[in-house]
């Protein structure tokens, strides 16, 4: 069982068949539907959201295509308020009758709800950053283009007697958020995800590469394939090492998983103030402003970061904003909803729509050179929280662990289970590489850029026989 994740934006463009983008509503169309719903509303206030996506993907395994597809979706939701009572209803049908039924359902639900003393009325119109996450090249990508990008990689894998498996997905989505106070925000976004695993037929070697992008034309499918293939070859016949505390070089995928879980899921002001969070201060309150992490750690969100452009709006329709979460090791911000912000007399801090960890200048080669004995880790798998008090996480390494001895990679190693906290890890960062766009299997669903990290004393608690 794995944690379910937020849906990725989805899209598809028709090649061969000249259809229309039925579910990608224009701003004018989204506004028209929104107005129609608002006109139907009899509630004191009302929130309307719309979303749609079109997607195309090629999935492959054992060097061949498996389940290739082109799904699409369309969603509309209405949240109605009577005083401090709220109720919402969602659907996939934009016909007049369906919209009227949706409004009625949300109003009936609201009327039956008890008053919520923490109810916050909708906000008025806001200023938003300009959206920058849409790519025409991604929208124009066809299934044939996806297959053409993958085919040479599969041929190379076959030529080297390897088995390649993976997933290449392109999507376009739209979303809008509006309310009866006159707020309306609309954006389109593009999303590309590519991951590839190459394995040796004897099952002793496995390599992986993967990332996300907005622009399909800038995704280097061949280069990612080459990394996975190279790692599969080099990871064959691993040696079994003792578990323990190791100096590790964590590649960006591994870092993005740990940072995403920490900032995306644990950085919460209210739970810290309530005494149930890693950022809780003994005796009450939170550790905001304290040096909780190492001085070389800075993490921020910026919806217009060119490396990882994010959505322009966040919770409750609040504008996504540049937010520094950790600045030189100091805990600067925790996510804070509007009610808790009002109660504690601070400004709301909406959740991130992208995440960036500031990088450094140390190359991976230099990190290897300065490591007497350590491990290079490609990525992690099946990460779960063991203790929320310390954000202790467990999970496993996967698809390429390499032993470093006296400044050189000497062997491939068996995978390990780790039991480590990103809070502890970010106090033991010895060097940082440049920040790059990265993807891990535990992605929290927002674009993330992180560096490769050289980390001291990373706890690996047992060895896994899995390859």
């Amino acid at each position: 069982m794995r944690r379910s994740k937020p849906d990725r934006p989805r899209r598809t463009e028709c090649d061969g068949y000249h259809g229309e983008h039925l579910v990608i509503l224009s701003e004018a169309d989204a506004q028209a539907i929104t107005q129609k719903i608002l006109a139907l509303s009899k509630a004191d206030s009302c929130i309307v959201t719309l979303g749609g996506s079109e997607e195309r993907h090629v999935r492959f395994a054992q060097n061949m295509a498996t389940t290739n597809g082109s799904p699409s979706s369309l969603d509309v939701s209405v949240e109605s308020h009577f005083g401090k009572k709220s109720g919402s209803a969602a659907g996939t049908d934009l016909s007049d009758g369906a919209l009227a039924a949706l409004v009625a359902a949300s109003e009936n639900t609201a009327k039956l709800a008890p008053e919520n003393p923490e109810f916050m009325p909708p906000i008025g119109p806001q200023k938003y950053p300009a959206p920058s996450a849409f790519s025409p090249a991604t929208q124009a990508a066809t299934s044939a283009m996806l297959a053409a990008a993958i085919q040479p990689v599969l041929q190379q894998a076959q030529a080297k007697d390897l088995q390649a498996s993976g997933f290449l997905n392109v999507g376009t989505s739209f979303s809008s958020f509006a309310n009866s106070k006159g707020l309306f925000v609309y954006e389109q976004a593009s999303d590309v995800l590519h991951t590839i695993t190459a394995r040796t037929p004897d099952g002793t070697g496995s390599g992986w590469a993967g990332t996300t992008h907005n622009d399909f034309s800038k995704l280097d499918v061949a280069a990612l394939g080459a990394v996975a293939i190279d790692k599969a070859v080099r990871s064959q016949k691993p040696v079994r090492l003792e578990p323990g505390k190791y100096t590790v070089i964590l590649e960006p995928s591994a870092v993005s998983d740990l940072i995403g879980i920490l900032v995306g899921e644990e950085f919460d002001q209210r739970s810290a103030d309530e005494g149930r969070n890693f950022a809780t201060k003994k005796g009450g309150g939170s550790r905001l402003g304290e040096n909780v992490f190492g001085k070389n750690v800075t993490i921020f969100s910026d919806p217009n970061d060119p490396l990882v452009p994010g959505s322009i709006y966040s919770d409750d329709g609040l504008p996504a904003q540049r937010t520094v979460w950790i600045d030189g090791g100091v805990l600067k911000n925790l996510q804070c909803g509007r009610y808790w912000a009002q109660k504690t007399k601070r400004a709301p801090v909406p959740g991130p729509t992208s995440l960036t960890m500031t990088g450094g200048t140390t190359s991976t080669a230099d990190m290897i050179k300065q490591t007497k004995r350590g491990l290079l880790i490609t990525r992690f798998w099946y990460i779960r929280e063991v203790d929320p008090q310390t954000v202790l996480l467990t999970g496993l390494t996967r698809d390429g662990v390499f032993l470093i001895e006296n400044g050189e990679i000497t062997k491939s190693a068996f995978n390990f289970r780790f039991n480590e906290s990103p809070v502890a890890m970010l106090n033991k960062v010895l060097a940082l590489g440049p920040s790059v766009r990265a993807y891990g299997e535990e992605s929290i669903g927002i674009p993330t850029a992180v560096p490769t990290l050289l980390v001291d004393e990373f706890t690996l608690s047992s060895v896994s026989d899995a390859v």
Partner: protein
Amino acid sequence: MPSTLFLGMRNAAAIEAADKLDLTGKLHLADVALDAAKAAGASYADLRLCRYQSEYLEAREHRLEQSSSGVNAGFAVRVLLDGTWGYASSPLATEDEVQRTTQLAIEVAKASQPLQLRKFVLEDVPVYHDRWDMPMKTDPFQVPVDEKIAKMLAINEAALKAGADYATIAFAFVREEKFFASSVGSRITQTRVRIMPETEVTVVDKATGKFASRAGLAPPRGSGYDYILGYDFIGEAAKAAEQAREKLKAKPVEPGSYDLVLDPSNLWLTVHESVGHPTELDRALGWEANFAGTTFCTPDKLGKLKYGSTLMNVIADRSQEGGLSTVGYDDDGVRSVGTEFPIIKDGIFVNYQTAIGQAQLIGQERSNGCAFADSWDSFPIQRMPNVSLQPNPKTCSLHDLLADVKRGIYIVGNGSWSIDQQRHNFQFGGQLFYEIKNGKLGGMLRDVAYQGSTVEFWNSMDGIGDKSTYFLGGAPNCGKGQPEQTAPVSHGAVPARFRHVAVLNTERKDIS
């Protein structure tokens, strides 16, 4: 970007009609899709028209935080064209859109053909014309929402009265309606309902900055609202608050090797991760290598591998009352109800779970009915039926299992869980941990997690409870596939005793 919404609006009447499709309308759309696929040269095609009605309620302490309902409807067309799969989906169930979507599925398959090193070949699947409805007493969608909310707030109140500082509760209800039509001739309509309760209480010691939580033990079920009415949520909430308080003062576990007695509220998830997933044929074939992973259960081990002790019998079924995987037919149109099969028999690995197009690759005739798509816009892939550890045919109580333990730990409920991509190395936590000393339960322990390797672990099992101790656990969100799909699945289990298992202390004293 062309303005396309109004195409939808022009078809508003048709769309409204589609939402209220009767069987005649569905059969007509099936003919449209399957005829178009056949005309385009597909050797196989199917259409799934689905409608998911949902309700989600969430409360915190004395306050309702969310009350929402929804209907999510649409269809997918899947085609096999010259041995290559293609599929496409749409939320607009009109005749024109079914035509367009079928052409899109064909186009996807054609575009992917250069990558088709080996053609997919499907076995013959029997033809069914049938309707299957999950039996239930009380439809949760007929229960007034205010009645449900009142119940939830009463449960939180019980927890707070018993000393919890915080209490959260969520009830989720889903009605899944699927219409399946395939080019082999099947036409199948099915309806089932899922109920997913979630509760948690938390206590805080502000002076020390420590806190502890206790999650509820009520599993999700394929049941009517009678399940909610029949479960003692109030009693459990009060007990949970006391137990969370006790956790704060519990003795830290000393790491080492222990005999474990695992309550079925803990063991069902171990069954899921270390038996359910390793015995999925698509993993063994390498089809999940890039994401969910492969498995140590390679086909050469079928019928040979001593997976566990001779007490270990694991059955796959689609018939168990309350099971989240209980259904008449799978999403390949293969009959599944009443077709249980053993996965582990007397400790030996004897069967994989399969979907169509797989079994013949290991020399077997046909699918055993384990395909599932989590939505109308997903491709059906092999997913778990109810996979359950069978009770001891001889009388054996929890007390009997504890009696033969000198130094051990009894673990109740699920905590964190993690297992490697080939399903060897696992680590599981729990909700409650009790010391066992000389056959008797002692005080509560904290910071416990157990690690093991699947085959070694199951071979260390030397005692299991009888049928009176059987418990049906489950999860609504098992993840697999790309794009990722989440499947609901149930697992029956009985308490069981395992010898010499590695136990960790998970406290990190270096993090203040």
